Each structure stands twice: as structure tokens, then as C-alpha cells.
């Protein structure tokens, strides 16, 4: 990165907030992100990386998915 300082917000920082934060409105009139079955691999990883309750990083957490 040479000259200009990049002030543009990184998309991941944005999606951390817009897809994992914000008020979730449930109801039949709206489409919830959580319902979306994302196909694209990179996007899928992105969504799962910003969703869900996440413990502080310094805890070793064997995350078990027990549906």
C-alpha cells in the first residue's frame, strides 16, 4: 500500500455488523438472512464467520453443533 491511505470500510467489517448485528425483524413480510441458503463457498464461509454467538478467542472451545 503505497500512497493513499485506504479509508474505505472493509467489506468483512461491514458484514460483521450488517449480517450479524442490527435488529432482526421476524415475520412473514420479511426475508431473514438466516433463512437464506447461501450457495457460494466464499460467501458461505463469510456468513458463517460472522454469524452465531462467538466466545472470546482466548478460550479453547470445541464448538459442537448439536442440531
Amino acid at each position, binding site marked *: 500500500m503505497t500512497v493513499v491511505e485506504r479509508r474505505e*470500510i*472493509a*467489506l*468483512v*467489517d*461491514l*458484514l*460483521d*455488523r*450488517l*449480517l*450479524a*448485528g*442490527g*435488529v*432482526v*425483524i421476524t*415475520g412473514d*413480510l*420479511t*426475508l*431473514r*438472512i438466516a433463512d*437464506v*441458503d*447461501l*450457495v*457460494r463457498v*466464499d*460467501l458461505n*464461509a*463469510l456468513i458463517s*464467520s*460472522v*454469524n*452465531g*454467538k*462467538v*466466545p*472470546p*478467542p*482466548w*478460550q479453547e*472451545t*470445541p464448538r*459442537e453443533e448439536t442440531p
Partner: protein
Amino acid sequence: MTAGLRYVYAICRPFGAALQAQLTGVAGVPPKLLSHHGLVAVLSEVPEDDFAEGPLRAHLEDLDWLGSTARAHQGVIDALTTVTTPLPLRLGTVFRDDSGLRTMIEAREAEFRRTLDRLEGRVEWGVKVYLDTEPAAPAPAEKAASGRDYLRQRQVRTRSRDEMWEAAETFARALHRSLAGRAEDHRMHAPQNSVLSGAAGQNVMNAAYLVPRGGSEEFVELVDRAKDDTPGLRVELTGPWAPYSFTEDTEDTEDTENTENTEEERA
């Protein structure tokens, strides 16, 4: 263009100032306001072709579309933060018409007011800690003379990586403790995948802090100071954001700290 749906960005208290005239939201449509029950919804009328359930579902799988929509959404929220403290909604919240939106506002009115009161005058700061994996592991591996040399070199490398990781965690924990002390609330986001973020190094902490506007300067100074003496580590600050990570109604929200216990409860 087909009939318009309502893409809603945020719920606010009534605010006096006007939004910038040239502000555009998602789909390039300028946002407008809908007042109801003493609350204001900020929305754009968007084409059904793109925002009805089916098309929206498809669009969300397109990273370019998602990116530009997210930026447009953020642009509107950002503009709102200059005149009020908005309660941002999750990306992709769409209503069929004004009446659906009004019904929703009525149903959640009390919660909106409670949350707006709690967030009034607060902003969110993002703080990330990275472990610089590349430069900190220079070791221009001298050719091992023997198997034993090789194993020793390997051991040294592994140990130093473990130590670096441990040091990073210790640093992050201390930084978090000091920042949380200056914040009203905090959330831990998942560490970012470096492939997706394109950021150098390994993200070891990705936290959000809720800070009163008036306390922001002090908070930022605290972060800046932490940036100074951290060899092999990088601290990154983003914000101020609208309080996206703190919109959950706290009536029955568990404290983040408590998750430690829950985690250990039974594996």
C-alpha cells in the same frame, strides 16, 4: 419498474435535521421517512424485481451485489448518525408496503423505545488484534546438517509459534479488559478469515465496544496507546459505527461473560 417494496434501514426517534439531499440508498433510491407512533422508519422504495423474496435470496449469493448493497445501507445509517442515534436493522429487511411496516412498528414499539434509550448518544468502535504471522517467522532455515538438527529447528519454530500465539492471546485479553472498562458494553465477533478480509496476519480478536460519544476520544487514545509497543502484533480500530452490534434487546440477554460457564457445562 414493478411495484415498490419497502427496504428499511433503521428505526429512529423523530429528528429535526433533514437528510442530505443527494443521499442514495440501496438500489440507488434516496431514503425517505415514515413516521408512526412517534417513531420514524427510514426506508427506500425498492423494485420487487430485485427485493422480493426470491430475487433477494438469489442476490445475496452474489458477493458484488451484497457488497454494494451493504455499502449503500451503511451510507444511509452513517448519514443518520450525524443527526440522531439510529437503531439499525439487519441488512435485507423488506416489507411489502407501508401498512406492513406500521404493523411491525406497533408490535415492537416498546422494545424499540427501550433500545433507542439505551443506545442514545452511543457509538460502536471495532477493535481487532492481529498476529503478524509472516514477518515474525523469518528463520531463513539453514540447511539442517542432520536429522537431529532438523528436529531441533522444527521444535524451535513450533515453540516460537506457540509462544507468539500465547503472547497474542495474553495481549488481547489485557487489551480487552482495559477497553471493556471504558465501554458500556462489548461483543465478540468471530475472528475474521484472512482469506476473506485480505488482511495480513491472523485475526485473534475481533471485538465491538459500545462507548458514549463523549468518551470516544479517550477510548481511541487507549487503543492508540496499545498500538505502540506490540512487536509482532497489530491493533486495528474501526469506527465510529452506529451501534449495530448492540441492538439486541437486553431484557433477557445473557452477559457475554457467562458464556464461559455455559461452554464448560458439558462438552
